């Protein structure tokens, strides 16, 4: 008695285990070809050379669960998740709904949210959406195209203690297992014959953008279909499996019109222009802007000129051409500077290019650094400007493979910029660039230019960006000239810039002898409408006025004058007279002081001072003439 009783218990346990595994395997078979993201259906690519049953080694490689019912399938974590959830509820009934989700046509209105969206979880408590897409309440239509119902109807266990029960009970589990294999074989073939399989294949294989997707939900209690829905669906039922303790039933309700649905939904989206799209050099490194004179393709395809590439600004101001990615950034700041600066860049004051900068510039001029017209966010459509890259290292260039969100925190008082219009999402440059400080600082005015209405950097900002103590109207160009031979780090130390006219000798070179970039800069001198980055053309008088202001604020020459003979740094019509008077007094002082100083002090007479003044006047006139020529 005891052995039979024990056997009956073990038999019941075996049957229960078989039933449980049937649920698991059924769910796996169904979801394998109904959930595109969990698809692991075909072993053909990974199939062993020989049949799995031909060698024990290949069989042993399968996990224990795979061998259930002699049907080796890959494990899907999502299936396990669904099973875990399902087991918490009624373990004797499993309903799997396959839902055809119609996506909205307007992609902009679709907000893709990460997994865990509450609304979708409420709808699909035990499942995940295919394609890992979730729509934040934007789902247009959902239609259940299949409903698989697997239910185990248990019945009162009969008393198996009678004679012969042991043998029959043994046969029960074996017979049940064999029949389960046949059932699951049928299920495996059936899921591939139903119309929904075609939709699954389309979603899996096609690269086309689909307006539909497949979702599923697994639960224990289904919502009954309406009469209308039931009328539209067909039923296919598998022969129930009879056991000693119950009956396992599997059936499916399916729509036979899914083929039409999928064919209609497979129409590709009509193309439309994304006006504010900013691409990436990775996608289109050789994309050119038609108006740009840049000829040669970039040797460094990822070397984009950014507005935050302050090195470029240092080297030379005017001509900047942009790659598609950062292009919006470049054109926008021009407006801010045009508003802020009252002076334009006289060509004569354009910085000469030290060897390294000129070389780098030449390198960069070969870059295909052209924004597409669509990228120019400025309504003025300011022409692209080529900024030669003087100090950009290769690492910087390579890191600039994508547009970058300029960190506004480093900009100090710069407001939060709405980058969506001008800056596409991208990894921050900060982490990838070597000269981060300079990069960030230099982006300030560029960014603010992008939103000129919102931000008007003060003098401190300008000083920070251009590394010099200049007035708000001071020409940044002069700062470039100064910084061309300096390191960027130094440039941000405003104390180094004592005077705007403290330029190198080579700053006075003929603008016509400039590097190629400036030759190309037909853009630079052209009127740049508000919205551009660099100062636009200013009146001649405004430039003179700026110079005068600079001179006024220039530190006095008295201390220096007593030690050495220094050329006055700036001159202006008003300042000249003042400075002459000052110098007269200074000369007198110096003359008296020179007697007691060392041999470095030379006595200067008034005549000498006047001669010096004359020289400065001539210099001034020359500068103005050159400036006038460039702007006429």
């Amino acid at each position, binding site marked *: 008695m005891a052995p039979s009783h024990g056997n009956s218990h073990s038999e019941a346990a075996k049957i229960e285990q078989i039933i449980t595994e049937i649920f698991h395997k059924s769910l796996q078979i169904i979801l394998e070809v109904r959930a595109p993201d969990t698809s692991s259906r075909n072993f053909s690519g990974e199939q062993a050379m020989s049949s799995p049953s031909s060698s024990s080694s290949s069989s042993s490689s399968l996990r224990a669960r795979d061998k259930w019912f002699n049907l*080796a399938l890959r494990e899907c974590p999502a299936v396990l998740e669904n099973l875990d959830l399902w087991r918490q509820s009624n373990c004797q009934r499993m309903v799997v709904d396959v839902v055809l989700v119609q996506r909205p046509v307007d992609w902009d209105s679709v907000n893709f949210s990460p997994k865990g969206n509450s609304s979708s979880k409420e709808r699909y408590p035990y499942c995940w959406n295919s394609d890992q897409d979730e729509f934040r309440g934007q789902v247009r239509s959902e239609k259940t195209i299949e409903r698989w119902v697997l239910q185990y109807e248990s019945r009162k266990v009969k008393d198996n203690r009678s004679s012969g029960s042991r043998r029959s009970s043994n046969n029960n589990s074996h017979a049940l297992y064999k029949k389960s294999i046949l059932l699951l074989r049928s299920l495996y073939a059936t899921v591939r014959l139903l119309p929904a399989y*075609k939709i699954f294949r389309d979603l899996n294989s096609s690269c086309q953008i689909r307006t539909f997707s497949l979702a599923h939900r697994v639960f224990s209690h289904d919502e009954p279909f309406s009469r209308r829905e039931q009328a539209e669906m067909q039923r296919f039922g598998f022969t129930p499996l009879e056991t000693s303790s119950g009956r396992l039933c599997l059936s499916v309700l399916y729509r036979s019109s899914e083929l039409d649905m999928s064919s209609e939904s497979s129409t590709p989206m009509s193309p439309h222009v994304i006006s504010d799209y900013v691409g990436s050099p990775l996608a289109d490194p050789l994309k050119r802007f038609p108006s740009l004179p840049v000829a040669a393709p970039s040797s460094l395809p990822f070397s984009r000129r950014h507005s935050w590439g302050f090195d470029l600004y240092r080297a030379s101001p005017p001509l900047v051409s942009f790659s598609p990615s950062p292009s919006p950034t470049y054109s926008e700041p021009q407006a801010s500077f045009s508003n802020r600066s009252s002076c334009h860049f006289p060509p004569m004051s354009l910085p000469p290019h030290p060897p390294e900068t000129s070389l780098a510039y030449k390198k960069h001029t070969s870059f295909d650094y052209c924004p597409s017209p669509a990228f120019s966010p400025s309504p003025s459509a300011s022409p692209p400007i080529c900024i030669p890259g003087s100090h950009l290292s290769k690492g910087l260039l390579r890191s600039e493979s994508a547009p970058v969100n300029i960190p506004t925190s480093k900009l100090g008082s710069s407001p939060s910029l709405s980058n969506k219009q001008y800056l596409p999402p991208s990894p921050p440059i900060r982490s990838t660039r070597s000269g981060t400080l300079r990069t960030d600082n230099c982006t300030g005015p560029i960014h603010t230019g992008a939103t000129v209405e919102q931000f008007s950097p003060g003098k401190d900002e300008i000083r920070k960006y251009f590394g010099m103590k200049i007035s708000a109207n001071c020409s940044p160009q002069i700062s470039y000239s100064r910084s061309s031979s300096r390191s960027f780090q130094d440039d941000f130390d405003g104390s180094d810039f004592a005077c705007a006219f403290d330029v190198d000798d080579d700053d006075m070179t003929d603008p016509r002898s400039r590097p190629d970039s400036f030759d190309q800069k037909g853009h630079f001198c052209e009127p740049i409408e508000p919205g551009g980055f660099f100062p636009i053309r200013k009146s001649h008088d405004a430039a003179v006025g700026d110079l005068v202001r600079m001179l006024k604020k220039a530190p006095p020459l008295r201390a220096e004058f007593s030690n050495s003979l220094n050329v006055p740094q700036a001159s202006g019509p008003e300042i000249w007279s003042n400075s002459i008077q000052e110098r007269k007094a200074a000369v007198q002082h110096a003359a008296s002081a020179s007697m007691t100083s060392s041999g470095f002090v030379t006595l200067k007479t008034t005549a000498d001072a006047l001669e010096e003044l004359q020289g400065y006047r001539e210099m001034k006139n020359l500068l103005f003439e050159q400036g006038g020529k460039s702007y006429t």
Partner: protein
Amino acid sequence: MNCEVCQLNELEVEHFEIREVLRCILHTVVFHRALGLVRPKDIDLELFEITYVQCGDAELEKKIDEKIDQFIGWVEKHPNKKSQICLSFYEVKNRQPSWFIANKVERLYWEQWYINLNVAQHTKAHSSKSHHSKVVVDPRESAPEERSARRAALEASLREVLFQIIKFVNEKKDHVPPIPTLEGVVCFPFEITIPSSSDSFGMDIFKRMLQTGHPTMLS
């Protein structure tokens, strides 16, 4: 043990469609009878939007393709005939030899599947005998619309045949023998009988009767 017989619906096929149709049907049946450990392999038909399942056993595939090639050869020699292919599953049992039975091994057929094909009359295109041959399109095709309609009808009929197989497998389970536990055995032993070139189809049945010793039940 009863021998369950399933007569599948007749299919009107063209010559170049024979291979695909037969592969689909035969593999589907075999998959339901390959109760050993299998790694299923999905196969998409080229001519129809149907995916069937193979066991993934190379020997099975080879055996089936060889029979299909033989059948195609027979069809070429006997055009315009309705043909039938019989897929039989049997058990091997030793039997004491007698004077009229040479073989000691007896086959006990426990299931037979009859695939009925009506090969279209105008199919004359030559088909390759390679296992991986592409489907040869009949050069003498009718109007495109007519052909597509016929193709669609055949696809629907083929799908019905597959469902017929599934239903039969589900409804009849008790006659299936115990699953072989031998290593390397994927499927119950089976044979595919095609009409022979010389003898009539009835002669084939008689030969089978001699081998099995059981009367063949024809439904």
